[in-house]
């Protein structure tokens, strides 16, 4: 899922301090799971802003809506009739949701309420870690299911490097060396022969290096 973290409320206040009608828009997908932008967080942010403005002696109307998703036309259309009523929308979906929202509703400023961080997994409640960098050319089949692109600080494809020490990475003694994990995993799978094979130079054109990307699937287009 896409992992996001809450933006400091002071930053959000700065965005909307002059507005009179504000919509706080949440998303029921990834940001709900990582407890940054779901219905609950919409309620807390709205309540915080209401109290802030009341304390400032300002009469500001703050409404709360949480959509199923903010990255699909059909769900964003649900607020078509009400969106124009607001001076500003604070979207606490990921960066995709904020942008899709801004593309769809040109006349209303849309502000981000979270910082979108990475594609990751929930290790335990309150701890999310990166697992994928969406490089567009998946290598997991040859690395025993552990991604050197997202989990190795150097993104090296024939590791480990000299900075690997006792299974940890030189950038942080608490961070596992991805290549140590790969070797351990391949050993457990009895596939260490795969480790001996040199991984050829990766085609990075499918990564962000090739500019903004798109996936075109004519087979599912109508």
């Amino acid at each position: 899922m896409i992992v996001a973290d809450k933006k400091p409320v002071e930053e959000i206040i700065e965005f909307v301090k002059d507005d009179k009608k504000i919509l706080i828009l949440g998303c029921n997908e990834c940001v709900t799971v990582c407890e940054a932008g779901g219905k609950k967080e919409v309620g807390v942010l709205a309540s915080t802003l209401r109290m802030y403005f009341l304390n400032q002696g300002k009469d500001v109307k703050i409404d709360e809506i949480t959509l199923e998703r903010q990255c699909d036309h059909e769900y964003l259309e649900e607020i078509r009739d009400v969106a124009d009523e607001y001076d500003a929308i604070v979207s606490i979906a990921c960066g995709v949701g904020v942008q899709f929202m801004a593309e769809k509703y040109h006349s209303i400023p849309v502000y981000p309420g979270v910082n979108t961080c990475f594609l990751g997994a929930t290790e335990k409640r309150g701890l999310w870690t990166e697992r994928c960098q969406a490089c567009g050319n998946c290598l997991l089949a040859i690395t025993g299911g552990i991604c050197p692109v997202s989990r190795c600080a150097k993104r090296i494809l024939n590791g480990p490097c000299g900075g690997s020490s006792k299974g940890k990475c030189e950038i942080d003694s608490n961070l596992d060396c991805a290549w140590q994990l790969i070797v351990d995993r391949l050993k457990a799978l009895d596939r260490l022969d795969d480790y001996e094979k040199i991984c050829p130079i990766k085609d990075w054109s499918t990564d962000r290096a090739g500019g903004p990307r798109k996936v075109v699937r004519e087979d599912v287009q109508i």
Partner: protein
Amino acid sequence: MRLNYPTSIKIIRVPCTGKVDVIHMLRAFEKGADGVCVIGCMEGDCHYKAGNFRARKRVEQVQKILNTVGIGGDRVKMFNLSSGEGPLFAKYAKEIHEKIMELGPNPIKLKKNKAA
């Protein structure tokens, strides 16, 4: 025991302090409460294992939010006691009452009344 505690305190019963969420405390302040005091079981004695620890963290979150919006994080506090400690409950109730009296009314309530 027939103990007395300040009449300014309204008790809201919950199955466990783990049920008390950030939004519940914020709504209380939004509606004009001068203070919120969460009283949970002793740490380590939670029937649901971690309910009172969750509550403590949420109280800390609310304190931060209240400081940010300018109401003052001191208006919310968490206490721990066992169900057999009536006198301690009365003591804590008195303590929070005195603290709130010292801080004065919730500024939001004053502004709301002024606007109305």
